[in-house]
């Protein structure tokens, strides 16, 4: 085995070891690395009142209600569980029913999540606006595109 090859092997081996160490750390701290909890993850956790967390999911269809001109309530769902959220403030442009959203705030009691910040999440699909119309006209529109 030549010296060059030995050095190459040593470098690659070191990289693999460091990479697995980093990945193990990240895997075991994934709850902290993840930016938000999904509603079904919340179900498994013990709810701590007034502790700031973030939840993420879709705004449930037909759940959006205006309480007043600047305060709203809606459900955040991941199709397995859903959480009632109240928010007063300005919603992002993309926010609507069926749209992904990340909500920052805290539970005020076991059922109601009071939001301080609402972020809209958009998906990885890009499509011209004109095609959406065509798809709807021909009935090929997939509801999950929303």
């Amino acid at each position, binding site marked *: 085995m030549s010296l060059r090859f030995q050095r190459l092997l040593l470098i690659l081996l070191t990289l693999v070891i460091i990479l697995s160490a980093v990945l193990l750390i*990240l895997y075991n701290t994934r709850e902290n690395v993840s930016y938000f909890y999904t509603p079904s993850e919340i179900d498994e956790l013990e709810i701590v009142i007034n502790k700031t967390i973030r939840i*993420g999911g879709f705004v449930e269809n037909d759940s959006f209600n205006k309480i007043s001109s600047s305060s709203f309530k809606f459900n955040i769902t991941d199709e397995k569980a859903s959480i009632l959220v109240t928010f007063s403030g300005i919603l992002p*442009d993309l926010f609507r029913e069926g749209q992904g959203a*990340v909500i920052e705030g805290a539970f005020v009691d076991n059922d109601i999540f009071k939001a301080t910040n609402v*972020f809209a999440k*958009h998906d990885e699909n890009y499509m011209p606006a*004109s*095609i959406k119309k065509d798809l709807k006209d021909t009935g090929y529109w997939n509801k999950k595109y929303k």
Partner: protein
Amino acid sequence: MKFLVNPSKFNKVADYVFLPVLILSIILFFTGLIFAFYLSPDDYQQGSTVRIMYVHVPSAWLALLTYAIMTLYSIAGLAFRIPFGFIINTAVAPIGAVFTLICILSGSLWGKPMWGTWWVWDARLTSVAILFIIYIIIIFMNLSFENRAVREKVVAIFVLVGSINLPIIKFSVDWWNTLHQPATISKLSKPSIDPSMMIPLIIMTLAFIMVGLGIAILRIKTEIISRKSNLS
């Protein structure tokens, strides 16, 4: 392919390709911008804001590509004692840093109208911020150390350790819940982007590659000359 590892052969090839690269980058950039601003449609969801993608995505790809190239050359430099590897490290680190900065700034401008925030500490954004910091550290390391032989090795090792961040950036959106959406274009599945938006994206990516290559050629040549005259 010797020009990829041999400074004097690189100089020869660089002299041939520099002018074509320069012309191509100008042509591609102008066609790309015309496509991005006038010939591409609005997104069904994001409207006109989607045009930020034509700057944001190519700069992100180039930031990662630049680092990947530095990683390969660091391995070559350390394992096979090829000095050209260290020349590349010194020359292209600032280019990668600028691409990362463009990516972060354009992403921030995109995040405000779409997500409702300039910046969040989710896994994707944080790992790209770390990439930027790594680039800055490499640039400063290249400016420090009296002894060139020591400096080159330390920088190359640091580049290798930092390369662990690359898969983390790439897969952060799949491994963890993030505000950033998952990849649109991946090798395994059909891209979920319409061809009318894919074309400007490809042209802009090629334009970014050409601009990066042009600056890289100039910086590598400068680095070769300054080493020959023992300036650094």
